[in-house]
C-alpha cells in the first residue's frame, strides 16, 4: 500500500454537514485526482472538531493547518496551493478576533488551549465509520484488558477509584451504580445507554455518537461484563439520524470483528448491542421513563425505589448510563482510576463536555477539566460575547438548571458548586445571554418547554407548570399585579417539592433562579410596565422623534402594517394601536429618529 503523506481531515458532524462538508470532500477528492495526488493524500471524514462557529473545518495533516469556514469552491485552491505549492491559503485561516493575528494551528487558538479531551478524544481525529482507525487508537484494548485480566469487581474498583460521576446530569457515582447492579441477583441483566439528549441547545451526546461511536459500544460491553449482562440497548432519539447511522455501522463492524457477539476475546463472554428509538420526549431522559418507553409503554416515570439497578427493563436489573459517561470508561480502564482522579476538583473528577451556545463568539463543543471557571469557558474559550455586548447571564443545566450571573463567573465548575450557586451541571448545555436578553422571557421560554414536555402523570407538574407559564406570560404582557410575584414564587416552590420525577422537581428552577438573580427585572415588568432588556414586545413602543425625522418616507414604505403616516418632508408618526413592533422602521431609518421606549 502506498503511504499517504498528507491527510485532510474534514469535519463531518451534523453542523458541518449542513454547511456542505460532503461537497467539500467530493471536490477535494476530485482535485486530488486531477493532480494525480489521490494515492498520496487521504481525505478523511471525522467527527465534530467542536469549533462549530467556524465550520466547516478542514484540517491538514501533518502540518496541522486548521482551515475554517471552507466552502466547496475552496477545495481546488487548497489542493493546488497548500498541497502542491506548500503555501497556506491565508484567507481561510482563523483570525484571532482580539489581536487580528492569523493562527494557523489549532493548538494555538484560544478555543482549544484550555481544553482537555477525554470523552472527545477521537472526535475530529478518526473516521467514525472505520473501526480500524478506532483500534489503531487503542480501541477495544480496554475491553480486552478487562475481559482477560480483571474480575468484574476489580474493574468496578477502577471505575470507583476514578471518581467518575454520571454525565447525564444527576452526577451519581458510576462505579457505585455498576456495583449495585452487579449485586442484584438475576439470570438476565441489561446495560442501557441513554442517548436521549433532550436539553434545548445541547449536542454533546450526539457529537460523541457521531464522532466516536465505538467508544460507547466498547464501554457498554465493559459494563456488561462488570454487572453480568449480555445485552446492551442504546436508547436514542429518532431525530439524530446521523448518529443512528454511524452507530449502526459501528455495531456491524464490531460484530464482524468479533468484538460484539459470542465468546468475545475467547473468554466466553457474550455481549451484543441493539438500538431502541425514542420519539424525542424530554421526560424519557429520566431513567424509569426511558425504560418504560423502551418496553413500549408510555414514557412516564415511576417512583424510585425500586431503582433500575434492582428492577429495570423487563423487570430485570438494568444499568443506565449516559453517552458521555460511557465515552470516559475506556481511557479510565487503560490509564487507571488515579490518572482520571488527578484531573478535576475534589468531588468532581475528570472533564466535562459542554455545548456552548447563545450570544457567545465561539459557539461549539468543548471539553474542559472540572474546576475550570465559567469566565474561562465563556471568555477564553468562548471568545467573549458577540458584538462586544455586555455579559448578563449563563444558563446551565437546561430547563432543569438555573442561570448564573457575573458574580458566579469565577466559581470553578463542578457538580456541587453549581448546585450551591442555584443551578446544576445537567448534561452540559451552556447558553450564554447578553444585555439584550430579558430574563423573564428566558424563564418563560424554558417553562414553555417543560409544559410541552410534561408527561402529565402528576398534578403539580401537569397543572402547576401550566399556571406558572401563564403567570410569566402575564408579566411579559405587563398585566401582572404586585402580589403575583409572591404567588409565582410560592407556586414554583410547591411544584419543586411535590412533583413525582426530576422533570417537575426541577422545572421551576429557571424561574426561581432568575427571580433570585434578577429581581429588579421582574419588578420593572410588574411595577413600571417596562422591559429593561427591550425584548417584551407588549411593553415596548416605537416612537419617532419629530425633531430628527426629515420626512424621507422610508419608514412608512417598509412598515408591513401601514402604521406610519406623514407627508413628505414633514415628521412622521407611528400609530401604536396598529404597530406590530417588528422594528423594520428603526432598522431602515438613516437619521436615528426612531427609538424604543
Amino acid at each position, binding site marked *: 500500500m502506498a503511504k499517504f503523506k498528507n491527510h485532510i481531515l474534514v469535519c463531518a458532524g451534523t453542523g458541518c454537514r449542513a454547511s456542505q462538508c460532503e461537497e467539500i470532500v467530493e471536490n477535494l477528492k476530485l482535485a486530488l485526482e486531477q493532480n494525480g495526488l489521490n494515492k498520496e493524500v487521504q481525505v478523511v471524514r471525522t467527527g465534530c472538531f467542536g469549533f462549530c462557529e467556524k465550520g466547516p473545518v478542514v484540517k491538514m495533516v501533518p502540518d496541522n493547518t486548521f482551515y475554517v469556514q471552507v466552502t466547496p469552491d475552496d477545495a481546488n485552491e487548497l489542493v493546488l496551493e497548500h498541497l502542491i505549492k506548500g503555501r497556506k491559503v491565508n484567507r481561510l485561516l482563523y483570525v484571532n478576533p482580539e489581536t487580528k493575528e492569523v493562527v494557523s494551528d489549532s493548538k494555538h487558538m484560544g478555543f482549544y488551549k484550555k481544553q482537555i479531551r477525554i470523552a472527545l478524544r477521537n472526535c475530529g481525529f478518526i473516521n467514525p465509520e472505520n473501526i480500524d482507525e478506532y483500534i489503531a487508537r487503542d480501541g477495544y484494548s480496554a475491553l480486552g484488558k478487562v475481559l482477560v485480566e480483571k474480575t468484574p469487581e476489580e474493574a468496578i474498583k477502577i471505575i470507583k477509584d476514578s471518581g467518575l460521576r454520571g454525565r447525564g446530569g444527576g452526577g451519581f457515582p458510576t462505579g457505585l451504580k455498576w456495583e449495585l447492579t452487579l449485586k442484584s441477583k438475576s439470570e438476565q441483566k441489561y446495560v442501557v445507554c441513554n442517548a436521549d439528549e433532550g436539553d434545548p441547545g445541547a449536542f454533546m451526546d450526539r457529537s460523541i455518537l457521531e464522532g466516536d461511536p465505538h467508544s460507547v459500544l466498547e464501554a457498554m460491553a465493559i459494563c456488561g461484563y462488570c454487572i453480568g449482562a449480555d445485552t446492551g440497548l442504546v436508547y436514542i432519539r429518532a431525530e439524530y439520524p446521523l448518529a443512528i447511522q454511524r452507530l449502526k455501522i459501528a455495531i456491524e463492524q464490531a460484530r464482524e470483528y468479533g468484538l460484539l457477539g459470542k465468546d468475545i*476475546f475467547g473468554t466466553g463472554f457474550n455481549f451484543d448491542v441493539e438500538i431502541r428509538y425514542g420519539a424525542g420526549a424530554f421526560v424519557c431522559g429520566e431513567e424509569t421513563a426511558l425504560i418504560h418507553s423502551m418496553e413500549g409503554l408510555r414514557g412516564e416515570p415511576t417512583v424510585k425505589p425500586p431503582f433500575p439497578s434492582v428492577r429495570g427493563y423487563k423487570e430485570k436489573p438494568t444499568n443506565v448510563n449516559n453517552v458521555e459517561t460511557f465515552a470516559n470508561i475506556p481511557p479510565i480502564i487503560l490509564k487507571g482510576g488515579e490518572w482520571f482522579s488527578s484531573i478535576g476538583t475534589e468531588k468532581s473528577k475528570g472533564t466535562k463536555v459542554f455545548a456552548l451556545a447563545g450570544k457567545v463568539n465561539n459557539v461549539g463543543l468543548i471539553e474542559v477539566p472540572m474546576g475550570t471557571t465559567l469566565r474561562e469557558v465563556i471568555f477564553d474559550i468562548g471568545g467573549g460575547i458577540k458584538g462586544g455586548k455586555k455579559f448578563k447571564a449563563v444558563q446551565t443545566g437546561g430547563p432543569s438548571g438555573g442561570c448564573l450571573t457575573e458574580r458566579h463567573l469565577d466559581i470553578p465548575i463542578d457538580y456541587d458548586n453549581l448546585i450551591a450557586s442555584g443551578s446544576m451541571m445537567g448534561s452540559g448545555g451552556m447558553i450564554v445571554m447578553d444585555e439584550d436578553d430579558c430574563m423573564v422571557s428566558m424563564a418563560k421560554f424554558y417553562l414553555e418547554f417543560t409544559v410541552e414536555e410534561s408527561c402529565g402523570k402528576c398534578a403539580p407538574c401537569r397543572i402547576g407548570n401550566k399556571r406558572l407559564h401563564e403567570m410569566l406570560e402575564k408579566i411579559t404582557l405587563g398585566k401582572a399585579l404586585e402580589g403575583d410575584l409572591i404567588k409565582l414564587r410560592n407556586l414554583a416552590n410547591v411544584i419543586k417539592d411535590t412533583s413525582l420525577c426530576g422533570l417537575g422537581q426541577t422545572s421551576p428552577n429557571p424561574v426561581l433562579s432568575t427571580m433570585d438573580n434578577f429581581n429588579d427585572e421582574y419588578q420593572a415588568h410588574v411595577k413600571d410596565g417596562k422591559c429593561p432588556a427591550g425584548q417584551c414586545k407588549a411593553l415596548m413602543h416605537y416612537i419617532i422623534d419629530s425633531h430628527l425625522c426629515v420626512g424621507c418616507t422610508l419608514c412608512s414604505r417598509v412598515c408591513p402594517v401601514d402604521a406610519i403616516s406623514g407627508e413628505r418632508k414633514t415628521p412622521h408618526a407611528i400609530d401604536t394601536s396598529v404597530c406590530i413592533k417588528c422594528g423594520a422602521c428603526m432598522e431602515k431609518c438613516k437619521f436615528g429618529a426612531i427609538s424604543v421606549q
Partner: protein
Amino acid sequence: MAKVKTLDDLRKMKDELKNKITLREKADDPESLVQIKVSMATCGIASGAKEIMNYFIEELDNQNIDAVVTQTGCMGYCYAEPTIEVTLPGEKPLVFGNVTTPKASEIIEKYIKGGELVDGIIPDSYNTF
C-alpha cells in the same frame, strides 16, 4: 479481515493499523519530533523536490525515526533547489540546499541521527515572523 479471537489478535491488529493514523498523532505534537520542510515552489518541484520529499518520508519511516515531513512555499533559494529545512527537537532550524538523494541520505545519517553538521547548509540571513 480475520476476526479478533484473542487479546493478542487485537494487539497485533493495532500494530498493523497504527500507521494509518500515526501521521495525525505526530501532527499533534510536532515540536518533539524531527521536522522537515521541503520547499515546493515551482523551482523546487522542477528540481525534484517531490522525489526528495518522498525519499525522506520513506527512509525515515523505514528507519523508524519519528518525523514530520511537510511541504512549504518558496524559501527564496531558487539557485539551490531542492532546499529543505530541518528542525531537530529543541534546535534551531537549519536549511540545506541542493539536496539530492545521496545528500538526503547523508543528512539523515549524520545530522538527523547524530547531530553532526554536513556540507550544504545555507546560513540564515533572514528573520521569520
